[in-house]
């Protein structure tokens, strides 16, 4: 599964993408796994209220199931327009 990071999430983690082999069944479980990787992941994922998530390029929430997901992206609230 590809895990993508954008904006300051990408900057804190230090790269735009990880390919992970995860048994997480929800986004929240995936976040727990990522937090355990390294300090910079723990920092990036410290406050979930400051983050948004998309699964397979659709906005969703942290309780979303990951069964069959190929791409999960984490990023701050969007500031387009």
């Amino acid at each position, binding site marked *: 599964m590809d895990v*993508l990071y*954008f*904006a*300051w999430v*990408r900057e804190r983690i230090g790269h735009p993408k990880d390919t992970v082999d995860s048994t997480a069944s929800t986004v929240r479980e995936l976040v727990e796994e990522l937090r355990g990787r390294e300090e910079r992941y723990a920092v990036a994922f410290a406050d979930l209220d400051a983050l948004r998530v*998309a699964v397979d*390029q*659709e*906005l969703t929430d942290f309780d979303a199931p990951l069964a069959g997901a190929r791409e999960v*992206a984490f*990023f*701050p*609230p*969007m*500031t*387009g*327009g």
Partner: protein
Amino acid sequence: MEIRVQEDPFDLGAEANAFAARQTGMGAVVTFTGIVRDIEGGLDMMEIEHYPGMTEKAIAGIAGEALDRWSLGDVLVIHRHGKLAAEDLIMMVATSAPHRVDAFQAAEFLMDYLKSRAPFWKKEVAGGSEGWVAAKDEDEDALSRW
């Protein structure tokens, strides 16, 4: 529906004329253009990051919802990414409708959703330091009216 996510500048006037010219029976055309503001003074650059692959899909979803909700002729969305300077045009939307209320409402709806639901992130670079533009509560709150 026409959606363009691009690094290159666009010509507001040429886009507005082309959009208006390809409508028939539409009494109203509304355009919105977003422009880089140098709010604090000394902005060196605005850099807009996006999520290639998701961006067009997210905008198409928002535009599709506008077409469902209002009686419209057509919708155009252009949004730039990459490096921009103060006073550069960031993005535009155009809507056409038989009646003005639909054209206005749809354009405001598009803007409210593009602000908070399309995967773009703005970074400001000024005087050697840089910072991500924070999302505003009022932009999130604006969605509740639709």
